[in-house]
């Protein structure tokens, strides 16, 4: 029988989910016979950054792709601003996606377009009210924000991995998203470039107050940019809280993860 305390907890969770920009509830996902997500629940509100950590292959990237609708969960729900995106028609899902920006692990820049062309791409399709000069100005502004204003006419193959990530970030911000999803933003980068990306993400977050989810295995990066951290293991969220909460945890996996990071 539900007690008052249970109801209070449920009510608090409900209110958090309703007010959350992104609320993921009891997600399950299996590929062939391999379960990557086994009942994952988490939420992120406006102005918050949640870092999702875990070993390679624990479903972190799959979680992000489910949130933006690139993968479909076997069960569970994903609510964006209170709306469940499961089973939404493509047009409705597209409207929700316009409020989200996604930085892919390897930037996923369109290799036949220049740096400017990549950043302009979402604007050309969704901001037809903008004139060509307005679009060009906006692209310059976005590239300047990420420190890539000198690479306007370069192709993705002409710039380094770290620079591609910056351009990918500029592209993700083109439509002024309310939610930002970052898949391993510092993966494959040297420590200096990683630090620059972290600083950039932190600066953008302070200025834009987006709800952000960062998937990473880089604990230093997670500590720098996130308000809260969640560790995934075997498809479940093992712990969620601040870095201090993680350090205080008695869970063996968490201790081992922190020791190795």
């Amino acid at each position, binding site marked *: 029988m539900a007690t008052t305390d249970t109801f209070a907890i449920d009510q608090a969770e409900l209110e958090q989910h309703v007010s959350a920009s992104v609320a993921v509830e009891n997600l399950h996902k299996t590929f062939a016979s391999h379960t990557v997500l086994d009942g994952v629940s988490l939420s992120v509100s406006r102005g918050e950054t949640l870092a999702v950590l875990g070993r390679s292959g624990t479903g972190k990237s799959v979680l992000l792709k489910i949130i933006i609708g*690139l993968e479909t969960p076997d069960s569970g729900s994903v609510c964006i601003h209170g709306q469940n995106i499961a089973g939404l028609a493509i047009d409705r899902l597209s409207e929700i996606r316009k409020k989200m920006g996604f930085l892919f692990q390897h930037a996923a820049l369109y290799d036949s377009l220049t740096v400017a062309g990549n950043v302009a791409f*979402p604007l050309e399709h969704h901001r037809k009210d903008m004139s060509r000069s307005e679009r060009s100005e906006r692209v310059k502004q976005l590239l300047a924000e990420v420190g890539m204003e000198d690479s306007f006419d370069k192709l993705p193959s002409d710039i380094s991995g770290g620079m591609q990530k910056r351009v990918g970030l500029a592209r993700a911000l083109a439509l002024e998203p309310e939610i930002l999803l970052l898949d391993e933003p510092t993966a494959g980068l040297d420590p200096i470039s990683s630090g620059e990306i972290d600083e950039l993400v932190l600066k953008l977050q302070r200025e834009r107050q987006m709800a952000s989810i960062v998937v990473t295995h880089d604990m230093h990066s997670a500590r720098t940019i996130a308000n809260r951290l969640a560790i995934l293991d075997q498809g479940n969220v093992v712990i969620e809280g601040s870095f201090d909460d993680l350090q205080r945890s008695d869970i063996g996996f968490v201790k081992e993860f922190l020791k190795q990071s």
Partner: protein
Amino acid sequence: MPLVLLAGAAIGVVISLEARYSLSRFGAKSMFPATLVYSVIQVMGPIITGLVVCGRVGAGIGAELASMKVSEQIDAIEASAINPFRLLAATRIAACIVMLPLLTVAADASGLFTGWFAQALVEPLSFHQFISAGFSGATFSAFLPQTFKTAVYGLIIGLIACFQGMNTRGGAEGVGRAATNSVVLGSLFLILADVVLVKFILVFFP
């Protein structure tokens, strides 16, 4: 275009050489122009154009889209709230449908020209005489269905190449597989479609 013109030219010469020999054996050399015209426009021109385009364009589309798939560019398009099928596949399929009949006409013209030229080297025959004899008794509309059936070839080539490309998995190996499958499956379905289309044309455009 150069590939298609070259293929058409080769077909024209081959048919010219084979037809001259066969028709001479049966005392029907006067049928040579009509034989060449009908063989090129109704049979060989469309299928050879389709197969050449399948190899060149089908492989290109399959490889390009596969490369985009494995590098997550198609996912990036979808994450930007843009329908990747409408942007990438529909445009390519439409282009194939429109271009195949046009390329077929070019291949036919090339084949007829080189076929006449090969014959003219052996027996003097003006191009005007050749065309008049070849098209005598036939209306222009007699050749339209065979030419426009290549629009169906374009649909097949575009659909198969886009499907193979956009459903690729497995990195560089997957890209190679997508390109190969685009050509192999495209060619196979093209030939099978020709069987159905020929029957369809014979029934509805006798």
